């Protein structure tokens, strides 16, 4: 085991601190925006009078005007895993709403991130190894171009071509409508089949970044002395390329995975909207439109937690890949 306990504690501690600050930020964000969520809710004609508004305020812990008190309540609830009750889904708890949506987003986003990382890696390496070649130049150009294509536009085009015109894929949604009555195998098939287009959208839109980063890294690694020495040793090109070059090029981009994850989750919002995909992006967007503060808080917290956890995992994996870290 290459871990050392200080490294572990440091990473976990740092994640916890980040989490705490993120939770605080989450608490403040909607409140800094102004507006009174309970009145906003009460004023929606469906939920009549002042009494209702007062009752709701009490329920949402907004009856005590002290922000500090509310913050205390919020943290207390949070510690019990209670994210409050969603306004728009009233009276469903936020945790249920998010719990239903999260697997879909995590599934697609993680798959897409890993796949695009892998593909970007292969393309970037191939390009850098033969830098200046036709392959390199054409992938470089395509990467620059793809880097600037909006997620949702790709999604619309995919729907137009593959779902509507060719009819190869469903128009959206996460599963077949008859999902409930399916056997386990059919369920898996249904989920995968429906995830293909959204995942592809996310891959295409995030691929370019990985290609560029890995290509740059490898270009840098290729100019290192140990690469020269590897050649001087008479090692085979493939060994030099992967065991020496790619391995080292991979390291700096590994921590960048986290930021790319944030980017992809951002893109997932529009992608999920276009594909009617019931993920956190869609929930978040609707929550924002509905002024559903508890749900916004919950969704943001959950995004933050996902990113922090993924980052933590990356941090914990890092020493396994880079021997220099554990002692560092």
């Amino acid at each position, binding site marked *: 085991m290459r871990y050392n306990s200080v490294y572990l504690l440091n990473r976990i501690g740092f994640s916890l601190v980040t989490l705490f600050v993120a939770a605080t930020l989450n608490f403040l964000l909607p409140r800094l925006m102004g*507006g009174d969520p309970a*009145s*906003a*809710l009460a*004023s*929606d*004609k*469906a*939920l*009549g*009078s002042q*009494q*209702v508004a007062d*009752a709701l305020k009490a329920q949402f812990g907004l009856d005590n005007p002290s922000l500090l008190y509310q913050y205390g309540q919020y943290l207390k609830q949070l510690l019990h895993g209670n994210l409050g009750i*969603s*306004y*728009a*889904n*009233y*009276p*469903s708890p936020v945790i*249920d*709403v998010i719990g*239903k*949506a999260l697997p*879909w987003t995590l599934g697609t986003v993680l798959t897409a991130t890993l796949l695009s990382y892998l593909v970007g890696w292969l393309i970037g390496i191939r390009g850098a190894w033969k830098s200046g070649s036709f392959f390199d130049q054409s992938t470089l150009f395509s990467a620059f171009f793809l880097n600037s294509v909006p997620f949702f536009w790709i999604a619309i085009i995919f*729907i137009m071509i593959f*779902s*509507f015109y060719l*009819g190869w894929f*469903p*128009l*959206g*949604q*996460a*599963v*077949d*409508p*008859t*999902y*409930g*009555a399916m056997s386990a195998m059919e369920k898996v098939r249904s989920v995968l089949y429906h995830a293909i287009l959204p995942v592809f959208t996310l891959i295409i839109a995030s691929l370019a970044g990985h290609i560029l980063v890995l290509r740059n890294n490898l270009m840098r690694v290729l100019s290192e002395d140990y690469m020269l020495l590897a050649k001087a040793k008479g090692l085979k090109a493939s060994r030099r390329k992967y065991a020496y070059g790619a391995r080292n090029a991979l390291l700096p981009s590994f921590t960048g995975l986290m930021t790319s994850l944030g980017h992809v989750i951002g893109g997932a919002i529009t992608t999920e*909207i*276009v594909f*009617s995909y*019931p993920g956190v992006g*869609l*929930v978040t967007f*609707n*929550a*924002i*439109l*509905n*002024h*559903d503060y508890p749900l916004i808080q919950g969704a943001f917290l959950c995004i933050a937690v996902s990113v922090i956890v993924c980052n933590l995992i990356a941090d914990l994996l890092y020493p396994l890949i880079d021997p220099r870290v554990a002692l560092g």
Partner: protein
Amino acid sequence: SSSKPEASAGGSPSGGQGAASSAGASGSGSSGSGSPVVYHLGETINPEQVTNFNPFLATGNWSNLFDYVFDQLYYFNPVKGELVSRLAAGEGAWSDDKKTYTVKLNMKAKWHDGQPFTAADVVYSYEALKTNAALDRYQLWGDKRLKSVTAQGDDTVVFALNDRFPSLPFYLTTVYIVPKHQFEKENPAEFLNKTPIGTGPFQFDSVNESAIVLKKNPDYFLGAPQIDQLLIDRFNNSSTLTLAIEKGDVQGSTGTVAMPSVPKLLENPANKLQVYPGLSTYAVIMNNEKPGLNDPAVRKAIQLGLDRQSLIEKGESGGVFPASPGFLSSVFGDSTDAKLLDDPAYAYDANKAMQTLEAAGYKKNGKGIYAKDGKTLSFTYHMAANAPAQNKEGAMITAWLKAIGIETTVKLVTWPELTKLLMSGDYELLQNGLTTPPDPQAALEVFHSKMTAPTGTNTPGLNYMRFRDKDVDAWLDEAASADDQTRQELYKKVQDRIAEQAPIAMMYNVGGHVPYRVDQFQGYDENLPVTSALSLLKVSKK
């Protein structure tokens, strides 16, 4: 002649029974076929609309679902503007003083779990609204309305009123009857009702990420549906939903499709569109208390300056109806002042709009905007975010207003914010729809001064315009308890006054436009919304 709504309510039981008999006839026919008949209904349902199935709650559910699973005493048929009996066995009976209304129940009804349906369930459902004021969205238990709801035996319910309230039967359409034996164990205001039990034509089966699954209720008291399964496919935007209809993934929808899609949809002979006027009026709502807008001349100019025909043709591809300047939708038949609709005095005319302003003493300033007494006709214009097509119409209106010398600044706000602004009156111009209860009195009472409050205070009703007119108030108060003939006349007067005072600038009337496919299923009842529960009862596989 008698007043239309009540007459139609009286006529409906036979219609209902007719439906039942025909359904029963073809129901036996469908049972012969091998594989189950599945009908896909495509709907715009967001994730937050399937978190509960409690018909009392206004949030967290998709309300159209209850039409299939539950029954009201009466169903309002917007196609005909009539009431249709559901759990009521025919039209109820008014007492002589018109202060009690007695409804006989259709005792053939049974809960999905096999329990018998009784008057106690009806009483419970209404009492739940009384004890949980927050659930009483239409204020049935408000002043001058319900005093008590009591059962007479198992099969009769008596509604006692504080005052005369001729619209009561229409209001009865808004309350779904829930099973007392299930609900009494819960707090109806917080009950999530994950497996709803109703009396309706379809039984709840399950819900998943893509659909709500219903199956037929073979014992439905108005006749068993022919289709075995009703799948309500969930989409979160109408564009995809429309594509699904075009592809044949779904057979129909109760909801809105993007209007510009309609011409293309109809190129396909398999697709049909049922269109009927409805209870929603889209309008530029004006705050009649704000400087400038408190001048009827300005409001009138705005009304005249809107090219409603363009909005309907270009913005909505002809899929909506012209709105009457007198507000009342033509769904209310004879109560509606039909001649107002084509009255050239209210037709789009930019020149006349400017003449109106100039006649009222407004002069154009350097920037070409009218002004009087230091007040420039420059207003904020709120609209809902996340509605690009509506915003595009707003942008068109902005341009037309600019052309008649009225300047607007567009602000996008979220839906809750928009509602809040409407209620509190912190707006000048605001583009939104107004949806009224299915009753002409209620619809017109939108303009009653008791439904408003000064800017800064929340309105108790839909009079967001802060429109106050003593005559209108008097006429409406009189109509509330007048006989049919007088009511019609009073309503006409009210509508004329509204048209004249222009408290609100109409855009168009949004009714139903129900897309459905006829290539695989048949038997839709076009006298009802074709995808409503009562129509689907009769639909069968080709």
